[in-house]
C-alpha cells in the first residue's frame, strides 16, 4: 500500500513538473522574435542591418505633410493624437526600408506607423547614406506614457523572424507625457525626408 501511495505521489509530482516546464517554455512568437538592440532618445542604436537615432518627438492634433517640392498637403486629422518621431536612419550594408516602425505602449498594444507616404519608414535607404525625417503614429492620448519605439525592416511580423530590431525608450514618463499633451499644437507640419 505504501509503495502504491508513493507511486501516485511521484506521478502527481512528475505531472506538475511537466506542466511547469511547458508553461515556462517560451512560445514560438518569443523564440522567433526579432533580435532587438535597446537604446534611448538621442542615442545611436546599431543593429546588424541599420543604425537608428531618435532625435526628438512632437505631438499634434492633425498633421500636414510637406513633400519634396515644398508643397504642404491638407491637414490629416485623427481620432486620437499624432505622435511624430523624428529620427535618423542609415542602412548598414544593403538597401532597405524600416517599414516595421511600431509604437509599443505600456498596455502592450503595438501601433504600426501610419500608412501615409513620404515618411522616413517608407523611404528607400542606401547603405552609408543617413536619412532624417518623421515617422507618424496615431494613438489614443491616454496611452502616450511609457510608449517605446520598436523598429524592424518589415511591416509584416512574419518577415522579421530573428531579424534586426531597435527598441528605443522615448523617455515618456507620466509628467513628460502630460506636459507634451498640454503643449500639443492643433496642427503640426512635417517636412520631407532628407538625405544627410
Amino acid at each position: 500500500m505504501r509503495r502504491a501511495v508513493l507511486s501516485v505521489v511521484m506521478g502527481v509530482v512528475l505531472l506538475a513538473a511537466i506542466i511547469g516546464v511547458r508553461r515556462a517554455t517560451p512560445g514560438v512568437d518569443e523564440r522567433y522574435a526579432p533580435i532587438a538592440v535597446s537604446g534611448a532618445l538621442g542615442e545611436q542604436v546599431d543593429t546588424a542591418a541599420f543604425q537608428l537615432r531618435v532625435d526628438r518627438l512632437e505631438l499634434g492634433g492633425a498633421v500636414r505633410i510637406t513633400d519634396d517640392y515644398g508643397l504642404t498637403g491638407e491637414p490629416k486629422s485623427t481620432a486620437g493624437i499624432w505622435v511624430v518621431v523624428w529620427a535618423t536612419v542609415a542602412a548598414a550594408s544593403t538597401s532597405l526600408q524600416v517599414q516595421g516602425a511600431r509604437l509599443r505602449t505600456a498596455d502592450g498594444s503595438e501601433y504600426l506607423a501610419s500608412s501615409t507616404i513620404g515618411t522616413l519608414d517608407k523611404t528607400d535607404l542606401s547603405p552609408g547614406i543617413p536619412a532624417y525625417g518623421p515617422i507618424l503614429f496615431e494613438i489614443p492620448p491616454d496611452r502616450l506614457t511609457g510608449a517605446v519605439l520598436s523598429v524592424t525592416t518589415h511591416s509584416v511580423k512574419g518577415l522579421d523572424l530573428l531579424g534586426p530590431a531597435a527598441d528605443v525608450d522615448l523617455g515618456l514618463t507620466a509628467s513628460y507625457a502630460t506636459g507634451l499633451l498640454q503643449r500639443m499644437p492643433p496642427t503640426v507640419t512635417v517636412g520631407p525626408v532628407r538625405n544627410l
Partner: protein
Amino acid sequence: MGPWAVVTGVAFVVATVLALAWPAGGLKEAAAEIPHRRLGETTTGHRLAIAPYRVTYATKDPAPVFGDAKAGRFLAVELEVRNVSDQTAKVGDLAFRLYLTVSPGGSTIDRIRDKTAGFVIRDGRYDRDQIQPGLSERVMIVYTVPAPLPDPTDLTVTFRDDQYVAGFSSELSEWYEGPDLAIYDLKVDR
C-alpha cells in the same frame, strides 16, 4: 488483475480523453445561436467592434480613385469600427470577415472579387485604411453588384470573428477566422 491495474487503466483513459479534448478547444458547450442585429447595433469581436450605420446602392462609384466616378452598380456599406485588439488593423481585414447576401434573390456578394474599395472616411478623403488599437473610425467598403442580380433592396451581413492564434500555415500567431458573431439584416438606401 489487481485493483491498481483497474485504477491505472481508468486514469489512462480519462487522461487520454482530456489530452485530446483540451487542444481541440476543451469540453465546451455548443455555440449559441447567432444573433440577428439591425443598423446601428454594435457587435464586438476579438479584433474589431462594428456598427453598420448606412447601406446605399448607387449607379456611380461612390469612391472614385481618379477623375469622375465611373458608372456601374455599387453597394456601399458604411460602418463605425473600433479596433479592440492590441495591433493595427486595416479596413481590408474587416472586409475579409464580412459575408454579404443581397435580396431579392438571396445571392452572395463575393467579399474578395466584388469588393472595389475599402477605406477610412476622414477629412472628406479616402486615402487611409488603418484602424489603430483603441481608436474608432468611420469606414466605407464598396462592392460591385454582379450583372445578373436585380437591384438590391435588402442586405444581410454576417460578421465573423478573428482569433489571434498559432495557425496551420505558420507556427507563429496570426489572425485566423473565428466563429460567426452576428447577422445584420439591413435595408439598402438609394
